[in-house]
């Protein structure tokens, strides 16, 4: 599948050097290029759109982009969204460039040292099922693996792992460096480059501003690509808060991306502010763990990736330790609240991951808040105290920490801080994560108002796949709410927008029994392969599993016995005399696959993972059937696609309010239109009517009469038309 040779182009950050490098590589005088591209760099700065558009010097005519300056897809940002996006685009066969401010920060885990969890763990499995990286890298870099919610049923099991930060980065960078079709380059993006061709006017699509042509680096260098994925996380006008200090930065010690934010704002994107925070990092050598409750990983550890049977460090897992705040801690925080500008801000932070300051302000009666002391890796003593992100000044942070059990003598390696950043209203996006406003521009990750590595990676893979597919003129990969949590996430973002950093919860899904961690491969790998984003290696592994799964389900469905016979195999006897299949028997309390080995010996040799899948399918079978019916109903609405260029002003009888809403969201399907808050059933019917009418329009133009005259007349006319 991948024929392009491995390549890693390192281009220096400075303008002069890159100019030289550029000229050498392309044998083109840099100045000439700069001149011609200047016209083409339609940096969205001018409000005189018409005038700029009238500049018709298209780069493609003036100077054909040479291979080194042009790609199919450019991914900006090397965080979790960016890493998945560039790899995914490359997997589709698109020639891809990853641009990042610093090569060393690719795959950086800037906050908690863990991956997965309830809901989030399913996202990781889904990314893996689409042949993404984060699951496999976590299996290599994990220091402790656990399945959360074990007691609550497999539909909500949440695979989670504590991760060694350095190992994660190392393995991610290694994987990307060797990735076919992918080039990695350091550089700070200052601008997006739009095409100068005048787009044909599309009725109602007033918000389309242009088409992306590439990006411009701060060095002035322009790189061409018909598809650009921006994944700059919190770097858009990022601002760090510690105590009363605030300074621009994306992560501590890293520059914020100001220029890009301006470009997006000037292109008309709606930007708002969100905030988040991170706790201080502690020196483990100065912590007394002896009195704290340890928490160990599962034995054996369950890997994230469907490709792995085990994890790299399953027998060498590290423990986490539990401690908690106390009234003394709370008093120090309460007395110093005025020393943090982060708290006083009106910008919204996440309610489910509040800073310790806001926990104390909001839940005044609670005398203790749990803290998990999590190791950051094997080769260091850094401890991440999960649960106490804070923005107090350094002195107060230390004072407060030392009131906590086990931390009496703690040394702080780096204090906690808050980040405030710009995000783009995700209602600007299509289901592919392409923007409505600028064709070929995709946004993924925190820039869309989400939080969490997994949410970022999920968007990254979807945007990357679709950018790649679009560059190759192939059909997009669309995931609905019934396909995956990725679909739920994207649908929520584009239909509801966000008011606080968005995180996935299982409660957000209507089809929780169907969207499970165990079956993400069954849900997505075939889809991904057909779309063109799954490599042959995974496809082979998947097909073997799928064949076994089908065989197992067939055996279980076809094996039917009467209650008396089942009793002979040790099952409790019911006296209704009804014959039941083995799958139905799995629905009985505590039924396990093991119990069927005697009756159906072929099952014995099946992969335990497959047996586990069958067991869960059986346990839920009655409910899954019902959910299947719901999914069918849902999919009928999803199947009714609304043309993206629909002119809402031409749809009759829409209320102004509904028209504005529909214009803004441009729902892709009837289902999505229904989910937009405030859109009334009448509007939906009007939409249906309108779409129907426009669909029939060609018939009208051909002159075929619409249901006039008798049936015979119509038949006669049709025959006549055929004769002609």
């Amino acid at each position, binding site marked *: 599948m991948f024929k392009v040779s491995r390549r890693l182009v390192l281009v220096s950050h400075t303008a002069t050097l890159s100019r030289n490098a550029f000229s050498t590589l392309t044998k083109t005088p840099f100045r000439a290029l700069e001149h011609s591209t200047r016209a083409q760099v339609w940096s969205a700065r001018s409000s005189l759109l018409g005038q700029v558009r009238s500049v018709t010097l298209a780069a493609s005519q003036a100077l054909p982009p040479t291979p080194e300056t042009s790609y199919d897809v450019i991914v900006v940002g090397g965080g979790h969204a960016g890493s998945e996006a560039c790899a995914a685009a490359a997997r589709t066969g698109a020639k891809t460039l990853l641009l990042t401010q610093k090569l060393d920060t690719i795959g950086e885990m800037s906050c908690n040292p863990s991956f997965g*969890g*309830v*809901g989030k763990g399913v996202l990781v499995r889904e990314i893996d099922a689409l042949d993404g990286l984060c699951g496999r890298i976590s299996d290599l870099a994990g220091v402790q693996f656990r399945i*959360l*919610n074990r*007691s*609550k*049923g497999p*539909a*909500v099991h*949440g695979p989670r792992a504590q991760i060694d930060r350095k190992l994660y980065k190392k393995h991610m960078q290694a994987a990307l460096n060797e990735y076919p079709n992918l080039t990695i380059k350091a550089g700070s993006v200052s601008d997006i480059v739009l095409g100068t061709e005048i787009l044909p006017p599309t009725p109602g699509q007033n918000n389309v501003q242009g088409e992306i042509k590439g990006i411009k680096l701060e060095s002035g260098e322009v790189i061409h690509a018909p598809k650009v994925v921006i994944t700059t996380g919190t770097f858009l006008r990022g601002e760090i808060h510690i105590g009363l200090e605030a300074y621009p930065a994306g992560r501590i010690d890293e520059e914020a991306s100001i220029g890009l934010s301006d470009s997006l704002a000037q292109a008309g994107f709606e930007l708002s502010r969100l905030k988040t925070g991170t706790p201080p990092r502690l020196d483990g050598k100065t912590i007394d763990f002896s009195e704290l409750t340890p928490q160990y990983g599962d034995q054996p550890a369950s890997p994230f990736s469907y490709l792995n049977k085990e994890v790299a460090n399953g027998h060498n897992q590290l423990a986490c330790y539990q401690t908690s705040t106390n009234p003394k801690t709370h008093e120090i925080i309460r007395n110093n609240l005025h020393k943090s500008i982060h708290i006083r801000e009106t910008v919204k932070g996440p*309610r*489910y*991951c*509040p800073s310790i300051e806001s*926990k104390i302000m*909001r*839940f005044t009666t*609670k005398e203790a*808040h*749990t803290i*998990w002391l999590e190791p950051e890796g094997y080769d260091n003593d850094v401890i991440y105290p*999960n*649960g106490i992100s804070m923005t107090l000044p350094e002195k107060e942070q230390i004072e407060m920490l030392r009131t906590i059990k086990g931390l009496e003598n703690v040394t702080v390696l780096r204090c906690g801080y808050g980040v405030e950043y710009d995000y783009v209203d995700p209602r600007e996006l299509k289901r592919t994560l392409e923007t409505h406003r600028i064709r070929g521009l995709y946004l993924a990750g925190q820039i869309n108002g989400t939080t969490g590595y997994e949410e970022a990676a999920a968007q990254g893979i979807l945007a990357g796949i679709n950018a790649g597919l679009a560059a190759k003129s192939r059909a997009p990969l669309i995931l609905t709410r019934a396909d995956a949590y990725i679909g739920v996430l994207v649908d929520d973002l584009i239909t509801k927008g966000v008011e606080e950093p968005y995180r996935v*919860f*299982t*409660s*957000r899904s209507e089809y*929780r*029994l169907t969207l499970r961690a165990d079956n993400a491969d069954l849900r997505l790998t075939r889809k991904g392969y057909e779309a063109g984003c799954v490599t042959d290696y995974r496809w082979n592994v998947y097909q073997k599993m799928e064949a076994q799964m089908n065989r197992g389900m067939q055996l279980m469905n076809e094996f039917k016995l009467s209650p008396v016979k089942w009793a002979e195999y040790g099952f409790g006897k*019911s006296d209704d005399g009804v014959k039941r299949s083995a799958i*139905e028997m799995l*629905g*009985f*309390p*505590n039924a396990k696959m093991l119990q069927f080995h005697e009756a159906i010996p072929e099952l014995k040799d099946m992969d335990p993972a497959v047996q586990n899948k069958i067991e869960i399918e059986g*346990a*839920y*079978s*009655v*409910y899954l*059937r*019902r959910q299947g*019916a*719901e999914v069918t*109903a849902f999919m*009928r609405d999803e199947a009714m696609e609304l043309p993206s260029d629909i002119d809402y002003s031409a749809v009759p*009888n829409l209320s102004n309010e509904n028209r504005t809403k529909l214009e803004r969201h441009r729902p892709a399907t009837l289902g999505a239109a229904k989910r937009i808050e405030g859109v*009334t*059933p*009448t509007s*939906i*019917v009007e939409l*249906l*009517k309108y779409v*129907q*009418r426009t669909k*029939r329009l060609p018939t009208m133009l051909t002159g075929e009469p*619409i*249901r006039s005259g008798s049936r015979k007349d119509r038949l006669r006319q049709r025959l006549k038309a055929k004769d002609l």
Partner: protein
Amino acid sequence: PYHVCAVQRAAEAQGRPTELRYTETHLDTIFALSTHPGKAGIAVVRVSGPQAKSVLKSMTLAKAPFPKPRQAVTRRLLCPQSHELLDKGMVVWFPGPRSFTGEDSVEFHCHGGKAVVDGILRGIGNTGPHVRLAEPGEFSRRAFENNKLDLTEVEGLADLLNAETEAQRRLALRQADGGLKNLYETWRTQLIKSMALIEALIDFGEDENIEDDVYDNAKRQAAIVSPIPGTTRDVVEVSLDIGGYPILIGDTAGLRSSQDEIEMEGVRRAQDRIRLADINIAILPATDFLSSSKVGGGVDPIVLEAVRKNPKTMVLINKMDLPGLENDKAMAAAKSVLWGDTSLADGGEDQRRLWAISCQTGDGIGRFLNDFIKILKDRFENSVSSSTSITQYRHRKHLENCIQSLDAFLDLSADDIVLGAEELRHAASDLGRITGRVDVEEVLDVVFREFCIGK
């Protein structure tokens, strides 16, 4: 740990359907009143879906020949259960795909009176588990999907569609005014609370900050909405057909002043039920009025209050068969005890509110029933919002479904927490059809308000 079969067995034991209740799907057969509800000479009820044929059969005489396609024939329309005559009308059979929706369809043309239309809608709704009232716009929707709507038809549909869509829903809530609306809202709030507890346990259960008893607490919240049998469902309900009017009669506990807490709880519930009822009937023994010399002495003050507070209460004086009782005397005594003023008791024909009967001998019951039917006719036949019954029928269906899901939830053990959540979601979806959709954000709002979540 998934007691799917256990659930089914429990359901069987309780006489509930053994299948899970499915949510509405396109496989269902749907029906609706297609003409404007209200005072019209003729009403048309439309049925569409795979079971249209069997609906037609069960609504007409078994021996009547099945009508030819697209030909109107007269038929007696019967109640599918009691085989009682509902109306004489016309039926038209449209086998798919040559019908409005493209599916098998039937039209019933009947008289426009409310009782008739109600009877027919109710009858059709009872013909099978997958026969249900159409959702707003559903007929057109099906027609659209089967490529049956063309331009001219679409234009002609506008009025009908408007009637079918949100106007109905708005009307539904407007009708559910006062006490009922508040009741629905309380249920909704309770349900959201219950869901919040479960969802918190599922999504944040690993957070140490969530207490262990959350699941039980969620059940307690849900139980407030779905009364557990034997404790709160002590209002016995029977549905009767009186003079063509479908009546739901709720027999409450007797109203009586008491010190006993449990008994007072029963009385409180009876009073709630009285508040919700359209018509209240008080049955009091004649002896209450005569045995005591003191005026009102024999009638409990709670009863007096209930009768006086609700001027439309009908009072039946029972036990007139006892020796030594005279109708006139008993009536006069009752009037003076209950209202203190005899003129209030019978201000005119339709405001009559006092009858003397004997349940033992049946004396006076025929007369009462005649009057009762007249009162029903006066009060409901000409009711201004004439589509009340349709929306009430819809409410009833959704509420029944809601209760079914809640009961299923209460039956599930703590191991089944995800399945429990599933049932709650179904309950919320049904209640949401009346009160407005329960959005996950509302649930999350409660989660974050109630629990300090934060890892």
